[in-house]
């Protein structure tokens, strides 16, 4: 469907196009079954940042207050890119792993499902 507008052919600016982020793109991040962090997060990243920075540095830092984070075995993590399961290439960049502007990276940590396994 398209907008009901007084003037035919109405369009408006795409306010969040990637050019507006000064060379970076947005990456959304969600840790499944961990609702202590009430919602998925949003960070700007350089598209050519090595993907391996995420498990080694960025994710542990974003979720450092969750007691499960210290126990994560990154080799066993299950990754989802835009809702579909995938295996990241740790030698590739974020963009090289198929993450575009405003993509969602989700990860699940089998065996670690929040406080007392309650998805918190």
């Amino acid at each position, binding site marked *: 469907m398209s907008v*009901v507008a007084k003037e035919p052919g109405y369009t*408006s600016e795409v306010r969040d*196009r990637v050019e507006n982020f000064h060379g970076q793109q947005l990456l959304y991040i969600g840790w499944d079954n961990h609702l202590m962090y*009430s919602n998925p997060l*949003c960070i700007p990243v350089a598209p050519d940042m090595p993907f391996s920075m995420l498990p080694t540095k960025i994710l542990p830092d974003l979720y450092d207050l969750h007691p499960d984070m210290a126990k994560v075995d990154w080799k066993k993590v299950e990754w989802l890119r835009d809702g579909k399961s995938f295996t990241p290439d740790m030698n590739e960049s974020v963009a090289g792993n198929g993450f575009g502007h405003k993509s*969602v990276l989700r990860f699940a940590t089998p065996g670690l499902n929040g406080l007392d396994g309650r998805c918190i």
Partner: protein
Amino acid sequence: MNTVATAVSARAKKLSQRRKYELLTRGLGWDTTYQPMDKAFPFDTFEGIKIHDWDKWEDPFRLTMDAYWKYQGEKERKLYAIIDAFQQNNGQFNVSDARYINTLKLFLTGISMAEYASHHGFALAGRNLRGVSARIACQMQAIDELRHAQTQVHTISQYNKFFNGMHNPAYMHDRVWYLSVPKSYFEDAMTAGPFEYITAISFSFEYVLTNLLFMPFMSGAAFNGDMATVTFGFSAQSDESRHMTLGLEVVKFLLEQDPGNVPIVQKWLDKWFWRGYRLLTLVAMMMDYMLPRRVMSWAEGWEEYFEKNGGALFNDLARYGIRMPKYHDVARKEKTRLSHEAWGIFYNYTHAANFHTWVPEPKEMDWLSQKYPDTFDKLYRPRLEYWREQQKAGKRFYNKTLPLLCQVCQIPMGFTEPDDPTKICYRETEYKGDKYHFCSDGCKDIFNDEPEKYVRSWLPVHQIYQGNCFRPGTDPTAPGFEPLKEVLQYYGFHDGMDNGEFLDSPDRYNWEKWTSKSAVAGDRP
């Protein structure tokens, strides 16, 4: 002098209210002749609504301007007399406890400014509808909404002398992340055509959902000893009942005018039910978490005011071919988790809000267990207890990373799957090569229906990352630049005073010093 006016001057002086209303709404109108009516009223046809006979629009209250001024003037005099007495008696210290004040901060920044936006929208709708009675109804409602915003600001300004976070509501409304929720709601309505605006605000909000806004705030205020708020609430309430009646009248008028209007109105009801319901998330958390003395739970309120009363209303509208709004079943499923998810979001981000959050006291948690037997102990109590432990150990939990926001309702995506309260509900769509994210099917459908409109949403998180939420002259590349601190400055917040944990707040400290009462008394959860 036109013929109607001549007839009036020749007749007896005293006119009935009905006659006066007829003269006002029929006798004073005219069709333009120098310019075509379509040019004078260019906005009331593009939405596809067909009106064959504007005279069928009847304001059930038949209010005329002289009567309007008289009633409203009386209300104002009473209100300000009570506010004076409240101020002289230091009424702000008679509320249940200092946590309660945070509901007023939420109200003043979230709702009073929305009243002002509503005024703006009705003034615009009044200008753009060619039917005289509709224009007069919009005009009166525009003035009502302006009055509500003013009386609320005047009432709550007394609290501003003693408590933090309510020093500049209008400024905050245009900038602060969570206030983009009510702000974008009204701007969405205002940038539609006039018929969608009045259907959205007069019917979907005022008629269907307003009880869920005013009832909890006003009875909450009464229950918590806040007589000032109760007073402006009553003063506004008499207007609200007029608005509600008008809302129903509007929808029936549109449905009766042309069968082609029915699917258009249904689409608006679907959209604005969901928009309004999402907006009420703020009310849900207020009812269950922010009132030290609780009136009823969100779930009970939803059952009473939407499932029961709303259900009856839509049964009544079925004869026009109108059905229940889409996703009302999702709202039903969410009712036992909405407030908990919302409070979780604000607990995460209260360092960037102008009001405080806290973990409920043990007896308050027992109340929540009793009201939410299937969800609270299992899903939410352990999280709150963990947060409490951390806070006692000096490690109060704050989420330092900005949230993913829904493109339509603009609330952080903390809502869960309709059938699984442990999984975040992710919905996504792609439009012209860009991805867009939504908290629900309801918000996703609204986007997909008019993507051109929502691609330009001003999402606070993205605006911060684009560098648009710093004060002029700020250099984000300077060494030691702290984005969050700068954003709080841009919001006009006083870091360490307006924001953060209630137990660590100057509000708590001051309350205990000034009143010698506990700031977390809430004697009757």
